[in-house]
């Protein structure tokens, strides 16, 4: 099922008030998307330093989004507040969990936040690969848990994958559809599975691209040039990997490998080496490419 984005009416005050959990790359990107569409956002991270850095990055990304014409015209950005505790989630109309790609940590945070929110508030776990139903047991009302998989950066990519867990309720799906329509995203609803659709296809492909480099068949640049020039990939898989974050990619591949047994999902040595060296992609200044 797909839904089309709605027209944004700048005159109406937003009926949405988001709490976003996690001040990493995706938390910053999702906050930027929401703020740029006029929604108020409360961003939570346990680490005050990271939260301060996230605030600066959101300011920069709002400018980038405006520069690239990704925001609705004549819309005043929503108000951003930040905090290191979850309490403010009690006032949210929706909570987006965007912490690190670790099922145990996600379950822990979602359990805590589900005890605070008003019944009927959708809890949205943003994940690239962890099945929603693995987390549903941790929350007070499993019908209110739904998955999204925003691509990075969410304000530039118009389509988002929405994942319906076996226990996700219709009202939750409707609430998430309304929220994503307010953010002018096209949504595609899929069923629950490790990696859903996009990661299940893309991540083993990136792993293969890295393996091709590892085996000396071609350089990083050659792989991306061929995938762009011959197959129409917009950036090439290894540039995409740098944008995803190689640490996140390895985490996601591990999730896929552990749950599917597919050898193609076992992270290759080159990827693991880059992560060990702290080369996590664009966000760290280098990965397959150098961004300094």
């Amino acid at each position, binding site marked *: 099922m797909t839904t089309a984005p709605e027209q944004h009416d700048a005159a109406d005050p937003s009926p949405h008030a988001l709490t976003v959990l996690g001040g990493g790359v995706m938390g910053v990107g999702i906050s930027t998307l929401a703020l740029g569409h006029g929604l108020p956002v409360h961003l939570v991270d346990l680490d005050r330093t990271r939260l301060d850095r996230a605030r600066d990055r959101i300011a*920069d990304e709002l*400018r*980038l989004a*405006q*520069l*690239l*014409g990704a925001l609705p015209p004549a819309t005043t950005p929503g108000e951003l507040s930040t905090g290191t505790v979850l309490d403010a989630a009690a006032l949210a109309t929706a909570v987006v969990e965007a912490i690190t790609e670790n099922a145990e940590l996600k379950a822990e945070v979602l359990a805590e936040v589900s005890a605070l929110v008003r019944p009927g508030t959708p809890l949205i776990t943003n994940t690239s690969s962890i099945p929603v139903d693995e987390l549903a047991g941790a929350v007070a009302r499993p019908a209110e848990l739904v998955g999204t998989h925003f691509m990075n950066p969410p304000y530039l990519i118009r389509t988002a994958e929405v994942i319906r867990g076996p226990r996700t309720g219709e009202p939750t799906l409707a609430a998430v559809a309304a929220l994503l329509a307010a953010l002018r995203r096209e949504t595609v609803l899929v069923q629950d599975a490790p990696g859903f659709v996009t990661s299940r296809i893309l991540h083993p492909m990136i792993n293969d691209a890295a393996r091709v480099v590892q085996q000396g068949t071609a350089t990083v640049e050659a792989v991306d040039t061929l995938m762009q020039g011959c197959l129409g990939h917009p*950036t090439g898989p290894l540039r995409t990997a740098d944008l995803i974050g190689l640490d996140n990619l390895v985490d996601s591949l591990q999730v896929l490998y552990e749950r599917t047994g597919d050898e193609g999902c076992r992270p290759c040595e080159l990827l693991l080496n880059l992560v060990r060296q702290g080369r996590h992609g664009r966000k760290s200044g280098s990965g397959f490419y150098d961004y300094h």
Partner: protein
Amino acid sequence: MTDQHTSTDAVESELLDFLAGQTRSRWEPETDLFAAGGLSSLFAMQLVVHLEKSYGIAIRGADLRLDNFRSARLMSALVRRLQAAQSDGLDG
């Protein structure tokens, strides 16, 4: 007017050097940097930051759009316009 033109050329020339340093290739003043086969549009933000730091201008509102950064010549014109607005006390 002569001074103004000299200044514009100097900005354009500096920008072409900056682009060469960042992209390891030379660009013509009117080449569209973001056309097919050119730079990623994400690079445009680096150009915004560079212009603001180098020329003491603030690029905001309707000026913050990709079309102003498509070539060294367009960026040079933007710098000149914002500097003139600032010196006229019109920058708000």
